[in-house]
């Protein structure tokens, strides 16, 4: 039992990181119906930005996190403007292939600039641990979890209660009608990329702290898993991405704990296959029936 609880806590911290990345996938999909495969690499860059600012400029944790958010957010907007905007009314597959191209550009540019070797992350948070009854919780896990919860609540408030959030939802339902109601669609889409990418930036620094090492290709697998988390929760649904992320994180940790770490990736893909067979819209996806 105590091991189960312990794994639950480990799973929640890993899942928080997946959830932060999954949010970016799901928001971008919701608004322009594009699966942004470069999103995992934005998260990788977030880790690198924090690495550079802390190692070379001596930033502490929170300033480094803000720097990651800002750089990733701006980068997300630039990528959207250069790579995706011209293809907004092209076929979906064209945008999808472009996203894969952007992903490679980011990966190999980073490899060129920073070198392909694995970098060791500086210690940014105290590695103190607390024992709560049968389980041990590290300071890092508390930070990861608290930051994720805070950002998710903030995101929900932005989407539900502010004018930009309303504009985002309006554009995702009917872009043309939104235009005619006085909404600047380009700005709204940029804002969505800004939000999603800055969350990925946070996920980047958190994963650097959690695993202690980063490399230019680190975005691929977590990116895919976060994408699966988004599909699991129902792509396009923000709460779905949060639940999906946590679920995937816990599932992965449990398999490592009780099965074998060999299957840690396999379980995630198995979940994807199952969800596509059983409920292709995902957990919270809307299976809307046309009213006739």
């Amino acid at each position, binding site marked *: 039992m105590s091991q189960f609880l312990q794994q639950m806590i480990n799973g929640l911290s890993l899942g928080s990181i997946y959830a932060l990345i999954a949010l970016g996938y799901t928001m971008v999909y919701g608004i322009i119906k594009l699966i942004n495969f470069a999103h995992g690499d934005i998260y990788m860059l977030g880790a690198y930005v924090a690495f550079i600012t802390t190692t070379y400029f001596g930033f502490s944790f929170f300033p480094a996190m803000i720097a990651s958010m800002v750089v990733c957010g701006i980068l997300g907007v630039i990528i959207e403007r250069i790579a995706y905007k011209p293809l907004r009314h092209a076929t979906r597959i064209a945008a999808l292939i472009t996203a894969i191209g952007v992903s490679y550009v980011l990966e190999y540019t980073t490899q060129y600039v920073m070198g392909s070797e694995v970098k060791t992350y500086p210690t940014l948070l105290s590695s103190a641990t607390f024992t709560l009854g049968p389980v041990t919780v590290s300071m890092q896990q508390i930070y990861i979890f608290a930051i994720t919860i805070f950002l998710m609540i903030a995101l929900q408030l932005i989407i539900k209660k502010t004018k930009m959030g309303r504009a985002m*939802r*309006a554009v995702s339902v*009917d872009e043309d009608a939104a235009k*005619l109601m006085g*909404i600047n669609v380009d700005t709204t889409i940029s804002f969505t990329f800004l939000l999603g990418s800055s969350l990925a930036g946070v996920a980047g620094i958190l994963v650097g702290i959690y695993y202690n090492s980063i490399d230019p290709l680190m975005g691929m697998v977590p990116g895919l898993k976060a994408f699966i988390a988004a599909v699991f929760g129902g792509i396009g649904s923000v709460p779905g991405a949060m639940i999906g992320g946590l679920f995937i994180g816990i599932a992965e940790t449990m398999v490592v704990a009780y099965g074998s770490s060999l299957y840690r990736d396999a379980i995630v893909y198995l979940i994807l296959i199952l969800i596509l067979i059983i409920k292709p819209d995902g957990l919270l996806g809307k299976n809307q029936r046309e009213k006739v």
Partner: protein
Amino acid sequence: MEPILQVKNLTKNFGGLCAVSNVSMKINPGELIGLIGPNGAGKTTLFNLLTGVYEPSSGLIEFDNDGKKVQLGGLKPYKITAYGIARTFQNIRLFKTMTVLENVKVAMHKNIRYGTLAAIFRLPSYYSEEQWVEEKACELLKEVGLYGKRNEQATNLPYGEQRRLEIARALAIQPKILFLDEPAAGMNPQETAQLTDLIHRIRDKYNLTIILIEHDMSLVMKICERIYVLDYGKLIADGNPEEIRNNEFVIKAYLGEEI
């Protein structure tokens, strides 16, 4: 009086098809104008040109913005909307998955002044603006009689109410000119009568200039002060309802020629 909207030789070609051809109109502030014509005459295309959905192939659209002339041709829709030009749609285009109240709030976007940072940090400006938005949106819903349904999803409203919600949403833009594209389509006679009242009421209350496309001739003849008739993209007549009723070109367009 200076016209609020002046259209000069407006033309729109789709490839070889001339959907709107050399149309000129003058619309004075406060007028209630009808735009009629057989199916496919180019009425909605003309609306789409005036609201920026399409770019004109040639011709000018001049809007009188408090004494300053502005060219609307080729501007992006959200910029045109910002001048105070609102519309409804022939095939209803509400934000289906959002609530009735939110549909109205979305259209107030350009009138909300707080920035994103104010929203994130929950500054007082955010609260005061959001409260104003809420009050204003509720007021508009009362106007069209949908206040009691403000928390329902837009898609669950009956057809006639969806049409009225579209009008409320268009009013939220705080327009000077309101384009109504077949506002009475699919309504029963009782709903049409209510709509007639509503159109009159909002024009007086908000000082609107209203231009409407409609196939229900009893509605058009009853409320419009002036009517433009389009046929095959060309303007074939304009005048008051009495003149239009007796105009031989109009009769020909609708009923065909005498043999």
